């Protein structure tokens, strides 16, 4: 099983992701420079958080045209697992691998905090180690996590059960009161139609070791590993 962590100029959570997958989970892991295009040796790709290209123009707008992204799109179309975290989620939106766009946080503040997420699906490659309705605690750190899509897209996301994580209280009550950024429907993470591409604003790599104060992030990476094992190694 081989994991790849894409490095754009300005990525700053790449080393955290690499550390969790390689040292904490003991998986083969490589960095992928944004100029590379051969992803054939990988089973899963992580687009990490950060400020790719300084967030110039719009978050993710320039990274989306990096050479590696056309390979990531091919990889996703062939069914490969792709997770975009924070800036990685923003890049997936700009690339059209997921629908919608990010707006500035409603409060206009950059928010660095821990939030509770409700797991809305327990049957995806990213959530199979959790049960539907479970509440997990994961850190966020973003200024533009206010997910927006038009009504038609939102209806489709709901009908197709593609909202995977939503912001909630510790008890699991989903409401705008617990939504840090103003996202529609309290959305924190969504998947694509095929279910192999996940975008989420919270950072599971920042809570995958007890020394960091939480391990709920491991549920997501462990789910991916479980799914890859079931699918069989390449």
């Amino acid at each position: 099983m081989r994991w790849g962590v894409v490095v754009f100029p300005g990525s700053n959570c790449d080393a955290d992701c690499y550390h969790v997958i390689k040292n904490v989970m003991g998986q083969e892991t490589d960095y992928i420079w944004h100029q590379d295009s051969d992803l054939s040796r990988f089973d899963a790709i992580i687009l990490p958080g950060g400020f790719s290209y300084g967030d110039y123009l719009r978050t993710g707008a320039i990274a989306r045209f990096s050479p590696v992204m056309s390979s990531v799109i091919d990889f996703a179309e062939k069914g490969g697992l792709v997770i975009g975290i924070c800036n990685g989620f923003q890049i997936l939106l700009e690339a059209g691998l997921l629908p919608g766009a990010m707006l500035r946080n409603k409060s206009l503040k950059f928010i660095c905090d821990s939030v509770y997420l409700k797991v809305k699906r327990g049957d995806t490659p990213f959530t199979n180690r959790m049960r539907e309705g479970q509440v997990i605690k994961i850190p966020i750190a973003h200024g533009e996590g206010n997910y927006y899509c038009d009504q038609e897209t939102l209806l489709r996301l709901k009908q197709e059960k593609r909202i995977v994580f939503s912001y909630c209280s510790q008890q699991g009550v989903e409401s705008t009161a617990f939504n840090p950024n103003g996202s529609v429907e309290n959305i924190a993470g969504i998947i694509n139609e095929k279910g192999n591409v996940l975008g989420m604003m919270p950072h599971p790599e920042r809570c995958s070791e007890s020394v960091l104060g939480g391990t709920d992030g491991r549920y997501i990476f462990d789910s991916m590993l479980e799914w890859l094992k079931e699918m069989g190694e390449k």
Partner: protein
Amino acid sequence: MIKANIYVTLKEGVLDPQGDAVKKSLHVLGNRDVEEVRIGKFIEVWLQSSDEEKARQELEEMSDKLLANPVIEDFRVEIVEVG
């Protein structure tokens, strides 16, 4: 050389937290009559070209692909200098 001005604005109905904050600040300054503020981007582009029609098409394409995000933004291309 052709010079174009490109205006990128948030689509109607898309929340603009930045515009809201500026509106509130204007109210504090005493501009109580300010009803709404929406903030967009103004981009100047110079093209090595003299064919206005071709340039317009190219500018529309680059706006749609990169300069604006059609999910949340509209854009308007104005060619201001040809020569």
